[in-house]
């Protein structure tokens, strides 16, 4: 991957040529907020917890050009009213069972400040939510060889997408990102144990050769093919162990795959991850501009939110680099 200098500015200029700028992304999110304060996956679709959480985090990252004053409080209020009595969040209001969206809703609220109770309740629900693969019935079934073709250490458990199902890479990564973001005084002792177990689970599920797919590294003796999304999420969740060989191997895979990415959400996520690890990568903008002209990202709120977060990562790296220059 060729090294590029000044990627942030290049990004903005090139995306402008595709009629997509950081400002237009921010404006798109602001205009897509539903009257109830939340966001759907697309403009004018019903508010969902995931879309609202990411849109709110993306707008929160825009410190130099914040949205109108009422935007974030309305979103925060929507998330708070969507929280279930047990502290979790479902995918949509009206659903009765909490799920993986609890991680991102808790994180989005935490980043706003002033929602400590809701955040802690969400975190506690997650700490109590165990995936099902450790159950007696499941272990018995596995011991009888039902899933002999799948290589994994099932004593290592992370988090599932929905209650009563197995651990998978993405929900585990999302929960770890929340736990890593919370201040130590929020975290009960069991959080550390849970976090370590989930980290081990992620390393156990890494594909041979690096990278992650949804969570099956080897099936019937054939190595699983890594995918962009799970790899980027796992790497972001494991960034505290950046120097580990597994992280570096997976980063190499992600960097090598970056040029071939054909979707805006994957592109933004991969860019954010590679920059978070300090990797120099080709600017995000040209590929984004091309995709935008082709399909307008299907007007996906999630895609635009993740693009803004990727640019925010770029700014954060640029700020760090400037600080390092000043102090050297």
């Amino acid at each position: 991957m060729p090294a590029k200098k000044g990627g942030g500015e290049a990004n903005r200029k090139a995306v402008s040529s595709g009629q997509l700028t950081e400002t237009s992304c921010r404006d798109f999110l602001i205009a897509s907020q539903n009257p109830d304060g939340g966001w759907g996956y697309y403009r004018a679709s019903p508010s969902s917890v995931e879309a609202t959480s990411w849109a709110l985090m993306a707008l929160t990252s825009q410190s130099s050009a914040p949205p109108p004053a009422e935007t974030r409080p309305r979103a925060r209020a929507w998330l708070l009213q969507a929280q279930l009595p047990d502290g979790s969040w479902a995918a949509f209001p009206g659903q009765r069972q909490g799920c993986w969206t609890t991680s991102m809703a808790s994180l989005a609220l935490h980043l706003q400040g002033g929602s400590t109770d809701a955040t802690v309740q969400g975190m506690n629900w997650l700490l109590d939510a165990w995936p099902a693969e450790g159950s007696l019935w499941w272990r018995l079934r596995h011991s009888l060889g039902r899933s002999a073709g799948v290589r994994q250490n099932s004593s290592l458990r992370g988090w599932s997408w929905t209650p009563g199902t197995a651990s998978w890479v993405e929900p585990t990564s999302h929960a770890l990102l929340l736990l890593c973001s919370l201040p130590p005084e929020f975290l009960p002792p069991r959080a550390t144990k849970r976090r370590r177990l989930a980290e081990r689970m992620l390393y156990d599920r890494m594909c041979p050769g690096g990278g992650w797919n949804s969570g099956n590294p080897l099936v019937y003796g054939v190595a699983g093919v890594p995918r962009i999304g799970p790899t980027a999420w796992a790497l972001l969740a494991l960034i505290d162990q950046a120097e580990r060989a597994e992280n570096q191997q997976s980063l190499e895979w992600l960097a090598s795959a970056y040029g071939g990415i054909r979707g805006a959400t994957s592109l933004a996520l991969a860019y954010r991850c590679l920059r978070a690890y300090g990797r120099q990568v080709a600017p995000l903008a040209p590929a984004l501009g091309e995709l935008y002209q082709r399909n307008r990202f299907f007007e996906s709120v999630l895609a635009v939110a993740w693009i803004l977060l990727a640019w925010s990562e770029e700014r954060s790296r640029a700020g760090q680099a400037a600080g390092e220059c000043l102090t050297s």
Partner: protein
Amino acid sequence: MSLASARLVPSFARPPSRVAIVRAQSYSLDLGALLFQALREFDLPLRGKKVLLKPNFVEPDPGGVVNTHPAVVGAARESFLRLGAGSVRVAEGPGHERDTEAIVETIHLRDYLGSLPGLFVDLNLDEVRPVPLQTRVSKLREVYLPKTVLEADFVVSLPKLKTHHWVGATLSLKNMFGIVPGCCYGWPKNILHWAGVTGSILDINSTVRPDFTIVDGIVGMEGNGPIQGNAKPCGVLILGDDPVAVDATCARVMGLAPERIDYLAKAGTLLGHLKPGKIRQLGESITSVRTPFAVLPSFQKLVAS
């Protein structure tokens, strides 16, 4: 679309089904003309209807082995429009890959359908509604389903001819897992596995039974399908008005015994016909196109003797 429309009919009371086998050796043929010709035989009630095509898009695979080939999707859309459909949209909710845009861009779906926004729907992120399941074979009682599926008048399952390392073969019935939205159940939709794969296939199809099926068997997949198997040229399109009968025919073409595929055997009681005597065969005969597919050792029992 057949939601709650008494499509659960015992085999003995169900009229014979129709399945056509059309030879097509390559994706570069005029598939639109081939499909249009074959579909006309079925005299389908399509005038002004909202048709929804549900292909099997799994991962960004430029090799054309994993996913329903976009040429087949494009040909089906063109054919249904020529047959009088009011609109024909394409929708899919991939099971493992969240970035559906990456899949459709990688396989160049746009080259076959034109501009995708408004035409292609990501079922994983669509608006959803709770729907009680029409049978209770799995542990599921209701599922959230996408509005785009529920509001369609005529649902067409467009799978690829593949073996499957969990259920033996993945065809039109298994393809309907893709209507279950990831935004509610994740990637993969693991709840369907924990509720029982066979039962979930039956419950989903009893609730949203495809009105028609077109299987892309031009190049299928054998061995460790549905993702990591090997390309298997088979040179056929298999289509029909009964998803069970089409899947049974596909299995026979693949050299498998459909009555030994658990979910197909069970589907044959209420969802459609499994027995050859109840399937009116159009076009090519099964024998003339039979192409034995390699299966994993654990599925050798499915191979027809």
